[in-house]
């Protein structure tokens, strides 16, 4: 891991503000815990032994660095050089392992014995249960009751790994309610429990800390691109739900002014239908889960339910650093519909033999729409790095339904 922290104009100030966004809008009962975490995180990041230990675990256990793969058939088809950052090949199948290993290592360092986590589709829950097993920590995962029914296979995975899964019935019984419940639980158990937050959102220091644990994605990709092609890419792209894989990729390129940065948000049925989760593109500034950021909300400031075919992107808020990067114009955030993402999922499967997560398929779909412009600007050597943040095994249930594949009587999404 290189270049810990981000003191640049794109990073946060001491209070966790990225320009107008971020901060810490939290109950007093959690401030002491957030202060403790802030100190422990800064202290760990300044400790070479901690950083080396994290790097070693990523390499030996998670499989980092992930490959930067030149998708040649896809590139030939689209007339530009398309490079895939293969986070789908990491242990547990997504970039999320980086974040949880970092936070769990920090938990050990802080002397806490238990972790809690929220999860939407279950990916962060599985990753957290994995990290807890690896480090010998107790683990409780909060998951919306609607999601536990949609994602029973992931519930079983977490249980297999020794975690306790609690179904949350309140509110819309989805990810945002799981976060609320995990925060409530954290208030009551904070002396011995760490909250492994699943994305680069929430109150300070989570957005900056999660970014630091994920930024290996971009640091590796930048180095790999220079090494393999002798140049930087013209653009880097990622999907954005809460935004941890995206900020993990973007951070290394923020100061490279010639590298364009694109985040693709879940457009659901289309932003014009109101059924979407394109928070930056279509939301407005507000406060959700402890940070000021773009939020999907109604005129009274009540959070509006988001919609996406991808459970991992189905969140009505977004990490505050993304809101800041959008506001200052360093990154652009555009919506990609469910249908566009599913087309890209099939295309990558059939062109490259890689079944991406539907989340990552959003990044690919958006990128393909971008390519004519990139080629117009940079010629046929136009080079783009797409963060293939996760693999699609977990999404086969959705794919079966969408494409009418096979026959499944199993609503858990198990593709057997």
């Amino acid at each position, binding site marked *: 891991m290189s270049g810990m922290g981000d003191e640049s104009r794109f990073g946060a100030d001491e209070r966790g503000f990225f320009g107008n966004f971020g901060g810490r809008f939290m109950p*007093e009962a959690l401030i*002491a815990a957030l202060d403790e975490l802030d100190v422990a995180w800064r202290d760990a990041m300044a400790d070479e032994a901690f950083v080396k230990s994290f790097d070693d675990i990523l390499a030996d256990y998670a499989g980092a660095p992930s490959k930067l793969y030149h998708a040649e058939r896809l590139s030939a088809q689209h007339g530009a050089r398309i490079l895939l950052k293969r986070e789908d090949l990491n242990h547990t199948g997504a970039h999320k392992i980086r974040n949880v290993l970092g936070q769990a290592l920090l938990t050990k360092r802080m002397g806490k014995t238990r972790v809690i986590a929220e999860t939407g589709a279950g990916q962060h829950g599985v990753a957290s249960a994995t990290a807890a097993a690896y480090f010998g920590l107790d683990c409780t995962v909060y998951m919306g009751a609607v999601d536990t029914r949609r994602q029973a296979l992931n519930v079983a995975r977490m249980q297999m790994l020794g975690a306790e899964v609690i179904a949350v019935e309140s509110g819309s019984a989805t990810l945002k309610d799981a976060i609320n419940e995990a925060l*409530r639980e954290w208030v009551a158990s904070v002396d011995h429990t760490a909250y492994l937050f699943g994305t680069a959102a929430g109150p300070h220091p989570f957005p900056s800390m999660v970014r630091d644990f994920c930024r290996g994605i971009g640091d590796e990709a930048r180095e790999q691109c220079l090494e393999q092609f002798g140049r930087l890419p013209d653009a880097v792209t990622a999907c954005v739900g809460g935004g941890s894989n995206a900020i993990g990729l973007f951070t290394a390129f923020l100061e490279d002014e010639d590298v364009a940065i694109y985040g693709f948000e879940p457009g659901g049925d289309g932003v014009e239908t109101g059924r979407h989760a394109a928070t930056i593109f279509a939301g407005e500034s507000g406060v959700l889960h402890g940070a000021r950021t773009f939020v999907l909300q109604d005129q009274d*400031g009540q*959070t509006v339910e988001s919609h996406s075919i991808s459970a991992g992107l189905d969140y009505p808020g977004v990490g505050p650093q993304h809101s800041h990067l959008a506001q200052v114009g360093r990154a652009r955030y555009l919506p990609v519909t469910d249908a566009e993402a599913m087309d890209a999922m099939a295309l990558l499967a059939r062109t490259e033999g890689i079944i991406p997560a539907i989340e990552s398929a959003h990044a690919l779909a958006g990128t393909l729409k971008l390519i004519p412009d990139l080629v117009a600007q940079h010629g046929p050597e136009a080079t783009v790095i797409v963060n293939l943040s996760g693999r699609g095994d977990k999404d086969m249930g959705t794919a079966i339904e969408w494409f009418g594949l096979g026959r499944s009587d199993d609503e858990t999404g198990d593709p057997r």
Partner: protein
Amino acid sequence: MSVNSTAHAFATARSEDRAALVGYLPAGFPDVQGSIDAMRTMVSAGCDVIEIGLPYSDPVMDGPTIQAAAQQALEQKTRTTDVLRVVEAVAATGTPTVVMTYWNPVERYGVERFATDLASAGGAGLITPDITPDSGAEWIAAADDRDLDKIFLVAPSSTDERIAMTTANCRGFVYATAVMGVTGTRSTTSDLAGPLVARTKATTDLPVGVGLGVSNGAQAREIAQFADGVIVGSAFVRVLQEHSADRAAGLRALGALTEDLARGVRR
């Protein structure tokens, strides 16, 4: 000190050598008129301050009882303007009335506009569970301009420095959340409450109200030994939930609970 400020209610209670009883219900539960009727019943039966909850979609500090009530209020399409209407109707009784609200609805309404409309509805101020004074500069300025109560929370995990910073920014009273956890009725009172109140009082002359899931007069009496106010929420909500089929019976039970609690705060 105006008669509708919470400080006035606490001073009155103190002059009677008792704690003040602060009663909470969410606006719009079971519906807007139902919440007005319920809060007026609580006033007549002995609440000294009414705390009106602004129902919010993501209430991280509330337990399941109050969450369910707020959810019901939102399903009834309770708007921020309805909450202000409830404030007006309750404040008209002459009992100090504060709004307990998560921050985003206020930010969305406009902080200045909210403060103006709250003041003109007769509201005494705000309890803000998800902002601390160090994140609440805009609200502090708007409240100071209109002499509204700013009620911030202290918790057992707060350092002495943070308690001092918080109480220095409060007006009206200080809200001590005396269990590490969320709102909800509990069968035994917390041994965290006494030390927290003592640490808080060491920093301020403001009255200190304690909220920790009190559900009957005996528990209220226990808290009233060391606190200036006893804050009760979930127990009131539960009474209304238990009588959802018969509103008149619900109001009678609410009145009876209030009287029991009011006897309790008389120590």
